[in-house]
Structures are given as structure tokens and as C-alpha cells.
């Protein structure tokens, strides 16, 4: 028994490392923490709720997973007022109307064939079924993900922006991976999609939804990881500059700012510094390009007096 245990642990560890190295190949650098979450969600068949400050790569994680598993990524962006018709399925009303118009003559024929009112209603009833068949069904992201033949990666982005009602509606789909359409019946997928939900925590997510998910919190990366991310995304950057830049941004995150600079903004800044052919950080240059990192004038004002200090520290 204990031997078995060790070997299965070994393979779990291997798979986690495997995931990590695969992600790395695609340029998504992550720590074991994140890779473990992906591994567990796969092996337990559970959705992952990813939380964290904006710009730490929550959406990227889903993209990287899709690419690694070679499955299509289906993305559903949430917003206030999102409802079933836009998330799950909708009838193609226009097409239905058009068809009834075009087929008017045909319908007349059929109705005229029957002699009593009852039989013509019966005849029409049959058509009803035709008009409410899959031909006239417009699948939206959720249905697409469930129906897809070879499985898929479903990304429900910024779930915190949607209404409570929509969250409740997701519960059935996330626990059973099935959808009931009254006119057709229950649609159940062959392969469970891998589901990511992301949230920026603009509002508390309901307990019921959280219970059904594994919860992964991605914080800002530590300097070591951030350096790795930069060298993967901006390979042409000078090594010295990279260290300085990462240290500078990390120092900036310790200040009392409205919006802290995210990883994606660090990458943007690194790219622009490379374009400007910079070899080392200078106060005047940092002041000119600071608006790439900081998006609020108040934040820029707060950090302005600290710039020399931060640069000094980052060079150590």
C-alpha cells in the first residue's frame, strides 16, 4: 500500500512539473502552486475560480491551458445584465420567421390538404417541432463548451461583473455539466470541459459557487518569478536592466497606490525600454515613461518623490 502511495505521489509530482514546463514553453511562467491547481482541477474534474489583482495573468492561465491541451478556448465575458440568451443559447427568431414566410405556400398546401380543423392543427404541430430543433438553435459560449466533441477549455471571465442571478444559473452547469432546453431536452457533454472562472473581487462571489470550485489566488509574483516572466516575454532585454526594472516595480508596489502596477504593465514597460534602447534606469527617463506603469495621475504624483530612492535601491 505504502509503495503504491509513493509511486502515485511521484506521478502527481511529475504531472505537476510537466504542466509547469509545458506552460513555460508557451511563455507562461508559473510557480508550482498554479500548476498544482491545474493538475487537481483536471484530476478531480472541478472548475477553478481564479482570483487576484488585475493583470497577474488570470486570463492568460486559461489561454495557456487551452494551448497546452490543444483544445479550443471558449470565452464568456461577463457583464451586468448578461443573461441566459447571451450565455447559453437562443432561438434564431429571424431565421424562424424567414422560413415561415418563405414556406407560406407549402404550409398552405399542407393545411389545405387536411379537411378538418383538428387534423390541420395536428399537421402544424409537427412543424412546430421542426422550427424548434437544433437547426434553429444558436449556441452561445456555455452550450458550445458543453457540446464540443473533443472537450474544450471554458473561460468565464470576470464573473464578479455579472449579476447574482447569473451566478445562480451557473450552478447547474458547473456541477453537472449539463443544460436543459425545454423544447429539446437535456444536453449533456461527452467530455467535461475544463472551466476557469476569474474574478477581480469587485463583489463577493456567492458561497454556493465557491463551494463548487477549487479556489486559486494568484498574487503579484516575487522578484525571481517576475524576472523569469520578463525574460520569457521580452527576451531581447539586457540582463542588468531586467533586474533593475523588476526591483523598481516591486518597490513601487510597496507604495500606497490606488492601482498597483501589474505584471502585464511591467512587460509593457520592459518592451518600451527596449525600444528606447535603454541600458540602465535614469530618473528622467523613468519619469517620462512612468505613465506606462501607473494609470492614475494621483499615483504618479505619489511615486514621483520616491523615484530616485527606488532607482537607487533597485541598482543594489
Amino acid at each position: 500500500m505504502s509503495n503504491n502511495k509513493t509511486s502515485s505521489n511521484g506521478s502527481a509530482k511529475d504531472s505537476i512539473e510537466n504542466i509547469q514546463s509545458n506552460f513555460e514553453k508557451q511563455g507562461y511562467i508559473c510557480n508550482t502552486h498554479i500548476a498544482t491547481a491545474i493538475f487537481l482541477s483536471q484530476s478531480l474534474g472541478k472548475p477553478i475560480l481564479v482570483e487576484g489583482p488585475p493583470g497577474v495573468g488570470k486570463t492568460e492561465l486559461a489561454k495557456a491551458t487551452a494551448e497546452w491541451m490543444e483544445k479550443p478556448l471558449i470565452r464568456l465575458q461577463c457583464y451586468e445584465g448578461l443573461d441566459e440568451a447571451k450565455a447559453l443559447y437562443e432561438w434564431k427568431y429571424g431565421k424562424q420567421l424567414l422560413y415561415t414566410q418563405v414556406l407560406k405556400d407549402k404550409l398552405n398546401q399542407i393545411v389545405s390538404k387536411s379537411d378538418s380543423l383538428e387534423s390541420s392543427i395536428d399537421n402544424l404541430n409537427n412543424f412546430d417541432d421542426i422550427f424548434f430543433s437544433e437547426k434553429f438553435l444558436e449556441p452561445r459560449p456555455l452550450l458550445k463548451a458543453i457540446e464540443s466533441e473533443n472537450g474544450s477549455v471554458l473561460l468565464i471571465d470576470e464573473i464578479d461583473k455579472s449579476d447574482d442571478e447569473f451566478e445562480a444559473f451557473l450552478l447547474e452547469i458547473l456541477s453537472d455539466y449539463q443544460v436543459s432546453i425545454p423544447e429539446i431536452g437535456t444536453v449533456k457533454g461527452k467530455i467535461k470541459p475544463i472551466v476557469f472562472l476569474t474574478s477581480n473581487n469587485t463583489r463577493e462571489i456567492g458561497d454556493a459557487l465557491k463551494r463548487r470550485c477549487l479556489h486559486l489566488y494568484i498574487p503579484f509574483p516575487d522578484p525571481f518569478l517576475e524576472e523569469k516572466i520578463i525574460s520569457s516575454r521580452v527576451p531581447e532585454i539586457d540582463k542588468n536592466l531586467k533586474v533593475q526594472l523588476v526591483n523598481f516595480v516591486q518597490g513601487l508596489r510597496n507604495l500606497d497606490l490606488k492601482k498597483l502596477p501589474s505584471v502585464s504593465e511591467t512587460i509593457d514597460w520592459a518592451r518600451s525600454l527596449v525600444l528606447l534602447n535603454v541600458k540602465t534606469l535614469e530618473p528622467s527617463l523613468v519619469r517620462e515613461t512612468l505613465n506606462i506603469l501607473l494609470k492614475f495621475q494621483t499615483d504618479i504624483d505619489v511615486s514621483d518623490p520616491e523615484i530616485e530612492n527606488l532607482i537607487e535601491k533597485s541598482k543594489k
Partner: protein
Amino acid sequence: MVDFLRDFIHILRSSDLRISTSESIDAMNIVSEIGLEDKSLLKHSLSFSLAKTLREKEIFSECFDNFFEENYMNLKEGKLPQKIKEKNTEINDLDKLGDIKNNLEELYKNSDKTSLMTAMALAARGANLQDIKLFTQVGMFTRKIFDEMGLEKLNNDIFQASREGNIKREEELKNIRENLRLEIRDYVENQVKLRTSYSGKQLREDALSQMRLTQADKSDYKIMSGIIRKMARRLISVHSRRKRKSQRGLLDIRSTIRKNQEYDGILFETIWKKTRVDRPKIVALCDVSGSVANVSRFFLMFLHSLTEIIPNVRTFAFSNKAGEVTDLFESKDIEVAAAETLLLHGGGSTDYGQAFVDLEGLLENNIDRKTTVIILGDARSNYGDPRCDVLKTIQEKSKRILFLNPEPISVWGSGDSEMQRFIPYCSKSKVCNSLNNLENFVDDMIRSSI
């Protein structure tokens, strides 16, 4: 393994984490996927299913470290896999416990700390240590566990030794007994720390939210502002949903027709008008003189924690002159702001008449039929003119006046209290002297103003 996870989850629950059955099943599955070898891997794997907010993750991490520091040795030494193999764990445990009972002396003399710990854990289960609630129970549980481990036999041996006159053996056994007792006590104290830190806090919080605010001690402020935050969060989650629902209005026929042109004018999709939600305006006037300062302090903190659902709050504080403190609360942390308010405006002798005049002057025309005016104070005006005429103009301009008085109804109007003269101008006047009262009042107010 099941036992350990169960114990661990029990501890997490008693530390204020809500863990559902389905989440514990997930945790089980995770453990069987990951195994127990790698402690840090196990830690963050379990955190995916057992801790679902940042705050919970912190608590989880602390509990995990405490719990596994103690139990990880046992886990590693293969005690667990064995247990899974032998399905009759219960019988197995009992047998072992029997062994311990008979050989307590040898166990203490011969074996290392780990097996002693194991024995204690086993006995602790027999003594239902997981039910321990309070620190004062330590003695009782120590004794219970000692009993489970075979105190009786040890006592008998000591008794026999003393009867035989074997003083050396008697001393030795007594030493063992004392040392064991200390070990067990340490163990129980550790467990209490692990399990009761939260339930003790819970008791304290319950007591504080019912306590009369005028009696609140400075040392309780921190816990109380925590309670206020909790209450505010609860109210926000309840009322933000209500608001959204009441926003949908009548059918908007014009836009519905326009939208449905693409369907040949057949009305498939309905467009609804949006009703404009009247943003309630709230003006609060708080007495911050000595006698009611505490109530005002917490009331102000409460109001300003609710900006998400009542954005238009203006607050004024007075003892003899009224001044606006809204900016203070908007620019600073609420606790700091509350303290500063008391410093700035407290200390004078109360004059309600002057306060009403000042309030009317400060508000000028910023008071209309949407404004709810809340007055908090004991209505004791030191025999000054209460200026009911000014209160009447405020009442006429505003939607309503609510009066909160921390004193019990029986003394309203006694001595220099002008309460009976104020009541006619207020739509509601209530006693309010504990955090629970405050919460109920604010809940009521929001319900009737959104």
C-alpha cells in the same frame, strides 16, 4: 488519514472557516491524489478546496502549520497507511488503548516522545477532547485523558508500593505520575489554543454586541469596530440585491417596438424602463458630549461603513456647537475619524437648541423631501432652550426625522431631558444602546428609504 483530515477540518471550522461537506470530500480526493509526502505541496493543494478567500487562506496557513507541526511526525511514520489497510480502526484503537492502560509505566520509561504523543492522542479521542470549549476545562480534560491512559493502575501501584514500605519505588512512581500529568496538561493546553481561539472570540463578540455601548471599555474598541464591519458587510449584501430588483420599471413600448423591428414587428424581446432610484439622502446629527460619546462614535462608524448602499451621508457632531465631520470620515480611516470627531467636537456642555440652529444654518437648502434626518443623543439640554421651532422647520423641509436615544424610555423627559418635547416632530424615536440595536435600526432605515 480520514481521522487526520477530520480533525484538521474540525480545527479549521473552529477558526471561523466555513467548510461544507462537499469541500471536505474534495479535500479527501486531493489528499489521495497528492499524497502526504510533500508537506508544502499538500498545504497549497488543500488550500484550493478549504480556504476560499484571501483572509481564509491566511487563517488556513496558520492552522496548517500549527496542526501539522504537531501531527506530521505521526503522519510520516506510516501510521496512516496502516490504518487504511486495517479496516477495523475502532477495535484496533481500543486494543491499543488497552495496551497503554496496562503498561503505562513501561511506556513512559521505555519509549520515545513520539509514541507517548500517539498514546496521548489516542486517549484524547477516548476522552472526547475535540469537545473542549473553554480554557477553564483544561484541568478536567487532563484528568479524563489521564484516566483513559491508566491513571487508576498507576495509583494502585503507588498505593501498593507505599503499603509494602518500598519508598524508593513509591517515589519513582510518583515522579512518573507527576511528569505524565505535566505532559498531558501541556498537550491539552496546546489543543485548547488550537481549537478555542475562535469560539472564545465568538462568545466575546456576542456579549459585546449586546452590551450597553455607554459601558464600552477602550480595550473593546478594536473588537467592536470589527463587529461593526461585519454588520455593515451583512447589510450591504442584503440591501444591494434589493436595490437592483426595484430598479426595473414598466414596459418601454417605444424601445420594444424599435428593437423588435428585425423580427417583423413581432414583439419577442421586451425592453423595460428603468425607474430612477431615489438616492436616499441622510443627515445625521450626533451628540458627542461625554454621556453619549460612545454611542455616537459607533453609530458614525457604522454609517460610514455603508457608503456602498447609502452614498449620500452627511454627518454632523455637536456638544454645544454643531460642525460637519463628513470630510473627516471620507478622508481618513473610520476609526481614526471617529476618535478625531470626539476630540474636535466633544467636551462642551450639551445645547440642543444651538445644535439645531447650527444644523439648519449648515444645511441651508441642502435639505429636501428625500432627506432623512437622524438625531442621536440623550436629549439632555442642560435646561437651555431646546428650540423646538427650529426642529419643526427641519421636520417640514425633510422627509422625516428619526431620533435615537441611548437612555431607556422610562427616563425620557425626566430632569433636563427634553425628549418628550422632541417626540412630536419625529416620525420615529427609538432606544438605542447596543450594537445590535444599532444594526436593527440601520437595517430598518435602509429598508424604508430605498
